């Protein structure tokens, strides 16, 4: 049974096994390699995407369950890598191996979308499901605070630095 949903603003129709996790539909059917496979049982968070805006473990989400829904992946977090979290991650040199960071960014961006100035405890709560085997937690944590600070400053200044999201309506202008 074909399944139709939106990925980063673009409608897609896939004819893949209905039990195929969204992770593999994204990676192997749609060639969106940013979403990562780490455990397959929702224990590491490397596969996190936004499903209708909510951070979701794509490795345990059957593709059939996303019919008609909107998926945003790391490739669609911004059009050009300009999301404040992406900028901060680059500048603060958050990644080590970098493999978990797409999932960290998707969880963190979902947090900031609903809670623009999270406390330490709220960040802990939101991020605890995302493993970083290299142990970059201190920079992840500081990076979320810094991105939140910048977004608040930009918002006060009139939204100049507000993130542009491909998933909203603009559609993907760049595909890997």
């Amino acid at each position, binding site marked *: 049974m074909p399944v139709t949903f939106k990925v980063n603003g673009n409608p897609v129709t896939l004819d*893949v*096994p209905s*039990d*195929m*996790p969204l992770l*593999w539909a994204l990676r*192997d*059917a749609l*060639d*969106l*390699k*940013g*979403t*990562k*496979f*780490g*455990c*397959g*049982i929702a*224990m*590491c968070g*490397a596969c996190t995407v936004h499903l209708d805006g909510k951070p979701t473990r794509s490795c345990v989400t059957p593709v059939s369950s996303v019919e008609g829904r909107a998926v945003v*992946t*790391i490739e669609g*977090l*911004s059009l050009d*890598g300009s999301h404040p*979290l*992406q900028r901060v*991650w*680059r500048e*603060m*040199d*958050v*990644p*080590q*191996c*970098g*493999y*978990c*960071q*797409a999932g960290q960014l998707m969880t963190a961006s979902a947090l900031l979308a609903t809670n623009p100035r999270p406390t330490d405890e709220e*960040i*802990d*709560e939101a*991020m*605890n*499901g995302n*493993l*970083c*085997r*290299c*142990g*970059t*937690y*201190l*920079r*992840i*944590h500081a990076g979320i605070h810094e991105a939140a600070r910048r977004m608040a400053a930009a918002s006060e200044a009139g939204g100049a630095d507000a993130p542009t999201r491909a998933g909203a309506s603009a559609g993907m202008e760049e595909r*890997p």
Partner: protein
Amino acid sequence: MKTRLLLDRRQFLKVGAAAGGGLLITSWLGCRGSGGGGDGMPPEFDLEAFIRIEADGSVTIMAQNPEVGQGVKTELPMLIADELDVAWKDVTVEQADLNTEHYHRQVAGGSTSTPTQWLPMRRVGAAGRAVLVSAAAATWGVPTAEIETSAGVAHHQASGRSLTYGELAAKAASMPTPDPESVPLKDPADFRIIGTPIAGVDNPSIVTGKPLYGIDVVRPGMLYAVFEKCPVFGGEVKTANLDEIRSEPGVRHVFVVEGGDNLSGLLGGVAVVADSWWLAHSARKKLRVTWDEGSTASQSTDGFARKASELFANAPEQALRDDGDVESALQSVRRKVEAEYAYPFIAHAPLEPQNCTAHYQDGKLELWAPTQTPAGGRQLVAETLGMSQGDITLHLTRAGGGFGRRLSNDYLVEAARIAKEVGVPVKLLWSREDCMHHDFYRPAGFHRLEGGVDAAGRLVAWRDHFVSLGRGGRFAPSAGISSDEFPAGYVPGFSLGASLIPCGVPTGALRAPGSNALAFVFQSFIDELAHAAGKDPVLFRLDLLAARSGETRLDAGRMKAVLEMVAARADWGANARLPDGTGKGVAFHFSHRGYFAEVVQARVSRAGKVAVEKVWVVGDIGRQVINPLNAENNAQGGVMDGLSQALGQEITISGGRTRQGNFDAYPLLRHRDRPEVDIHFLVTENSPTGLGEPALPPVIPALCNAIFAVTGKRIRSLPISKHDLSPS
């Protein structure tokens, strides 16, 4: 080829023209049997270069070593770029493929990239600068000594003339390669890139999800493979329902692979190759294999522990070091302490599962893989498949973590074997359970220790019976011990002996191999002896470092300096003022050329739950921290990794197979568990050394010593999660 320059005893440089008129600086290795151009002429190169400068001034620098998250893809090009004297913003870094004709030691392991490449990479950059200066001198008809460079521009101050490297590139390509003796390296005061914070070159791709890793490789017409091996290490396939699996959706090939005896090579199993990884994985769930499990099936971690107890009752099978008369020393001590310590097998668990993409065609093999030892991988594949290494191309991808797991190339040889059978590109990808079940584990080990302090509170006697894994007097991989391991050489009555348990479980190097276990044992036992002596744990260690009595590599002066500094930064003298339930522990360790001392502050709740609040790290890795931004990250990672091991990681074996399959049973440190970390590098007049490993070992005993300070309970086996730390 124009001329060549000796980089070190084996490596030469060559200056030439790039396609399009730029400058190309390549190297080649003059070693025999490398498959290179013999002892006279190097082979021709077009693509492989250390430095490529285009006419427009853009600079491309090749990163030769595998990037596994340690930052080497940024660090080594920084060394070249600084000596070349270009602006970092003008540099593009490209990952080199495996090329043993061009590159010396393309390895990620043992914290070796910095100490081995610190000078050769700088010489590459300096040679590049020298030919550009020569080209400018020839252009202007002035002596080279009158030419200065900065940020990719050559200047002649007397005449006010300047030319960019891009403008000089074509002419530089025809210049003779400079004499190595005359190529000056920068005075460190002139470094513009080395020692400055440089963000990782792959960060832009990482944060936007660009394909970078082995798992992301796609080839035209590619199929996807999974490989089921015997859960008992080294077992072989007896029967399998191959015909049934063949009719599963999307399945293209199913076949039995015969394995060999080498546990780190190709092992027996069943390959399932399908149109997508999910289809291959789904078909595999219906696979029914009967195995010839072999002799390892009777082994277990409980069995190893029982055997260790038996061996402790006897004298060690082999003596490794004896200083003085430990027996009489132990009899004359004021206080004697005896204890048994143990640590478990642990898995590497890099987050990117093992994978390799392979394409076999017309007798040639092309591989794409995240590996820490690409040359070793190619050799293993060549030997296993009966191929010439020259017929194998290996592309290096970024690796989603290594930690020593990817020093072994078993997944490369599996992918190559499968590709040879199917004839089209194929990507082998392991599941997380495959990774947990088929690792080269940090070996478990057991120590029976006796130690004693004299009336003055000095450590005067130390005896360790180390029960490790191995056979026939030979330690299993990474299960050995140096006879030099501290406190060897600092205790007048010292004895180290070992006995071995035969073991069919594959073992291997895990970040700070040896040290990640031995630091726990020895720095914890030293803490016990400090308490027996009634001395402060820092002062006891300082006294010990001041009492060198025998041969040892450890430089007591360097260790004393980091220990004193970490005690000061952690305000060790104020420990008595810590709140109830909170305590500090200290430890130091020398490994991989690095000197590290660390203090952990931990809180233990009434329920016995441990929270690590803060870690202070002071390290001495020589006179230059090449990239401070990355160094801090790397050292923080070492701390988190060590805490993760100490708190919860354990692999158990029964029936010859690993019982943990995924992160639900093998807990890694999580976001909420992170402590604050204070890192300081003590600059000393020593050659720069690596950082991947040495920050890790001390944090484990420092944590255990902190737990003792709070609870009075001594952690003598890991992980800590197995201990009841509630007040009893």
